[in-house]
């Protein structure tokens, strides 16, 4: 079986794709290498809304840059809409578009409508058709009343809606959305997600690759999700299947009141306790605890009593993608990001 035979049905395919960045070291003339992507193999059929979920620095943007012809791979190959992103970039480009979170594209002196019209020109869309389409999409996303506002006067949320229209108006076969709801308030994020879903539902041949580090966004929106960490894909499946991996675990949320610090090690070492996570919440301590089976719960409660921690509430929780991530990586996503924030770069080598 050659790749060519089934490339037609695939919107995106990558083969052992890797990217290494060269970065300047602390010392003069010293060059270090950072592995941003390693051995990525993906096959995304047409019609899929595919999510790439991973913490800061996982390599999500790097992958999108390669697939949108902005960056060369160091090794491996990639195809988008059936064409090689390196050798046939001129065939890839008319078929794709990209929107990134926090994007500041366009020109502030132009109105929303003018900015969008300008970008339509770069795709060869005739003016009249461009204007019709822009109007339709502006109405769909609720920005029509601001069409004649200078884009420099838009709030972050409205600006991102303009960017979304820019990406969707060229009707790309494959659309790349890099953290499209980054920095948006709850309401605007919800509207953008609804717009994305609606656009997918309208035409079964459309494909979206979306990156996010919001678990819930991936879960709510995506047909399939790949979990990416330190440049590698750790798992790739539908959200339901991914969660089934951790389904056999029982996950409880407990709120306890305690005078003295909790000895969490003692809890973790109880037989049948798989993972424990705790954080202070207005006055109490919130524990999230994964058990091999429900029967272990009395042991946990017994240990809490022994430590004179009073149970205030107890709740069984459905597993989420967060649990899948923890199972794969051993840390919660926010913990990974905190460590990175402290200058921790596991994938940097001399």
């Amino acid at each position, binding site marked *: 079986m050659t790749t060519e035979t089934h490339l037609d049905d695939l919107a995106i395919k990558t083969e052992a794709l890797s990217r290494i*960045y*060269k*970065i300047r070291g602390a010392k003069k003339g010293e060059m270090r290498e950072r592995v941003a992507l390693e051995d990525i193999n993906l096959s995304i059929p047409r019609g899929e809304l595919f999510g790439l979920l991973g913490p800061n620095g996982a390599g999500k*943007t790097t992958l999108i*840059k390669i697939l*949108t*012809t*902005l*960056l*060369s791979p160091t090794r491996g190959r990639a195809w988008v809409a059936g064409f090689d992103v390196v050798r046939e970039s*001129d065939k890839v*480009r*008319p078929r*794709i*578009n*990209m929107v*990134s979170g926090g*994007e*500041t*594209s*366009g*020109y502030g*002196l*132009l109105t929303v409508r*003018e900015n969008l*019209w*300008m*970008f*339509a*020109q*770069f*795709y*060869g*869309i*005739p003016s009249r*058709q461009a204007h019709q*389409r822009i109007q*339709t*999409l502006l*109405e*769909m996303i609720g920005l029509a009343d601001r069409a004649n506002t*200078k884009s420099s006067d838009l709030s972050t949320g409205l600006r991102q809606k303009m960017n979304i229209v*820019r990406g*969707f108006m*060229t*009707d790309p076969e494959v659309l790349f959305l890099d953290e499209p709801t980054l920095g948006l308030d709850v309401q605007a994020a919800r509207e953008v997600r609804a717009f994305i879903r*609606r*656009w997918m539902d*309208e*035409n079964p041949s459309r494909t979206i690759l979306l990156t996010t580090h919001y678990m819930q966004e991936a879960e709510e929106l995506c047909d399939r999700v790949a979990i990416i960490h330190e440049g590698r894909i750790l798992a790739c499946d539908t959200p339901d299947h991914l969660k089934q991996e951790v389904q056999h675990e029982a996950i409880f949320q407990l709120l306890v009141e305690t005078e003295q610090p909790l000895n969490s090690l003692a809890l973790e070492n109880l037989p049948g306790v798989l993972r424990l996570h705790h954080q202070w919440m207005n006055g109490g301590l919130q524990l999230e605890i994964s058990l091999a089976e429900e029967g272990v719960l009395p042991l946990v409660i017994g240990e809490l009593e022994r430590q004179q921690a009073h149970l205030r509430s107890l709740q069984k929780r459905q597993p989420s993608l967060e649990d899948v991530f923890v199972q794969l990586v051993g840390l919660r996503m926010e913990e990974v990001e905190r460590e990175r924030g402290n200058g921790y770069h596991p994938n940097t080598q001399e």
Partner: protein
Amino acid sequence: MSVVTATTPIRKNSGWRLFLQTVIGRAYPRVIGQQREKSWMFFEVLLPLINVAAYVYVYRAIGAPEDYVGFVVIGGAMIAFWMNVLWSMSSQLYWEKEQGNLALYIISPAPLMAILLGMAVGGMIATLLRAGAIIALGTWLFNVQYVVMNPWQLLAVFVLTMVALYGLGMMTASVFLLFSREAWHYVNLAMEPVYLLSGFYFPLKNLGFWVALGASIIPLSLGLDAMRQLAFRSGPSLGFLSVPLEIGILSVLSVVFLVAARWLLKTLERLAREEARLTENRR
């Protein structure tokens, strides 16, 4: 629920139509947008005129021939083009990169050369407005007398100067693809010496033959020299080279710059793609 987006497939032009649409699209913000903030009339017409006035009074005080006043007005107008090329062509791709526009240009099917050309055409039109205002006001204020024997040649010189100048701008713009913050300094570095070398305010000939010849690499120098010869009574006697020769050199420069721009753009775009410099700095 609207199904409009699903039922109307959109037409997308390619080839020369796409090229043309791209040029117009990218020129638009400069032709329309840049005139929106009326402050340009102050910063880009009145301030340069004050500069011109300073030279005019100096020349009058020392009793220089009256044609020198005209040289200064023309020079003041042409400086506008030079500033435009420096700030809105050469360093432009760096700003576009920081803003996130460059990435969108590259992933689009539009040729990057058409984007650059759009920037050039738009900048030229916007600047023409400013330069025209400077000439009109300067001529009126200082009562400049022109003697134009050959208007077609004058037009040809102006057009060729523009092509060569913006060709140079397109060429340096592609070099800036590889630069990051230091871009700023190079532009500043290029600004001052050019004021002197291109003879904005005095005949190029005064620099001496070899310096003048070196300065001719900047298309403005020869362009201005030829324009002075074609527009003023004393112009021909103060010219550096003969007008036909200057036209010849300007034509060669135009071709060289445009061809080099095309080649550099291709090569440097590839290099920038490999070295991860097409997008804003590491996030």
